[in-house]
């Protein structure tokens, strides 16, 4: 393609966009809808993933200590143990206070203070991943001075299963949704190109090369795809921002902390932009190709 052809292509795609304005807008809006659905789902998945991780990191191992345990030695060992996120030492006195709050009435426990206190000292160990809890508990149980390293077996087992299951579900649904969105977008573009198949055939008969015919369509498709994804990402971003704001205002629950860090949101929005724009481009390429075989 020489420079004249290139200039022609650029001019042509703009002219064509303006003459098929309605069709172009509808196509862009449909791309936007498809991608907004996909993007909304991905945001949901990321947030559920985060919630699970927060819940996981709240799973604790309770290490009950003998009265004569060397607390500092145990803490030193925990410092070096892989997979441990942190720990808190809870003295038997503190344990009693906590218990009183838990059952809602501290008065009931009066008379158990001091030497009457039946509770042992305790170290609460926070872990990084629920999956490692059973193994870590076994290790901590082996430390001298630890009477019992306990963790709600049932809860942790459940958490692990939920995590695995949700991961599989979200992966499956993401793939299905992405395929659906791609199919929708490519077909929409194909339908809008179909309306102009006659034109493509005539150009071919006038001796236009495939690239000469294709290029304005590619530019057009890319522009529509880009425009559609811009709509999708911007509105998705705005909605997400509002949801996050209301979530934070409500401070619903410690584990319903929405994902707000840019490093994790950026790939989703950037990915949508790239996907939509590429789809516009590739969709046009494939759609036009069908009618180029004259």
């Amino acid at each position, binding site marked *: 393609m020489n420079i*004249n*052809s290139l*200039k*022609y292509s650029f001019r042509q795609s703009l002219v064509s966009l303006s003459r098929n304005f309605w069709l172009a807008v509808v196509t862009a809006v449909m791309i936007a809808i498809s991608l907004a659905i996909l993007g909304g789902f991905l945001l949901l998945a990321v947030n559920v993933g985060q919630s699970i991780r927060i819940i996981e990191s709240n799973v604790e191992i309770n290490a009950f200590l003998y009265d004569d345990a060397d607390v500092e030695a145990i803490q030193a060992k925990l410092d070096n143990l892989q997979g441990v996120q942190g720990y808190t030492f809870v003295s038997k006195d503190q344990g009693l206070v906590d218990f009183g709050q838990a059952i809602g009435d501290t008065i009931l426990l009066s008379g158990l203070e001091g030497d009457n206190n039946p509770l042992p000292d305790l170290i609460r160990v926070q872990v990084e991943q629920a999956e490692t809890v059973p193994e870590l508990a076994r290790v901590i149980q082996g430390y001298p001075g630890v009477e019992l390293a306990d963790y709600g077996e049932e809860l942790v087992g459940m958490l692990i299963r939920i995590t695995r299951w949700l991961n599989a579900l979200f992966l499956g649904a993401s793939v299905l949704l992405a395929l659906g969105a791609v199919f929708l977008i490519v077909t929409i573009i194909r339908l809008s190109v179909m309306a102009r198949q006659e034109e493509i055939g*005539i*150009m071919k008969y*006038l*001796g236009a*090369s495939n690239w*000469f015919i294709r290029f304005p369509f590619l530019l057009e498709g890319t522009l529509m795809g880009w425009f559609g994804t811009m709509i999708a990402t911007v509105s998705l971003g705005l909605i997400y921002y509002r949801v996050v704001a209301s979530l934070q205002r409500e401070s619903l629950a410690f584990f319903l902390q929405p994902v707000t860090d840019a490093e994790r949101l950026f790939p989703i929005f950037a990915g949508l932009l790239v996907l939509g724009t590429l789809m516009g481009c590739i969709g046009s390429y494939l759609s036009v190709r069908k009618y180029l075989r004259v």
Partner: protein
Amino acid sequence: MIEIRDVKKLYSGMATPALAGVSLEIERGEFVFLVGPSGAGKSTLIKLIFCEQKPSSGSVYFWGKNTSSFKEAELLKHRRRMGMVFQDFRLLKQKTVFENVAFALEVVGKSPKVIREKVPAALEKVGLAGKEKSFPMELSGGEQQRVGIARAIVKDPLIILADEPTGNLDRDNSRQLMDLFARINEGGTTVIIATHAYDVVDRMKKRVVALEAGQLIRDEQRGSYDDEY
């Protein structure tokens, strides 16, 4: 330049062939009328030369080369050399008259400057000056046909293939356009016209190739529309 050798064309699903063994040679610079009743195979023959259709058997040679063996690039080059007037016009509905004619030049990478010179000249020749900005749907039948003619002649083609180029034109316009084709032919361009305009054929005394039911029944230099003229 063009050699058609025992060409048969049977459209898929049809019982009788559109061309049933036609042989013909056309030299550079010739002016040929293709005549024959409706459905005789004139358009089919033109489509074979233009490589819009492929022969079912037999071959079409262009400067000694079998057009069936054309690769994509050769096919494009072949079509760019030709100025084709389609029987059904085939204008680009989305483009204005100017853009339709300009497209033939853009395809071959001509500069905007050349385009701004040549397109109005071609439109002038077919009597459409002033209609540049109209879209095909806003033209009368004859005007659409003339846009098709302007698009064919604007690129100074090696060969003009015109399929019924005056079917929607009045007598005076027809004669002027046929004279235009004759003038272009005098400049060395080969011209092949399928037509029913018997008066023009008779008047111009050019080579006449007559088809009937897919058979070549007559090929005369300085011929006429009818046999028994």
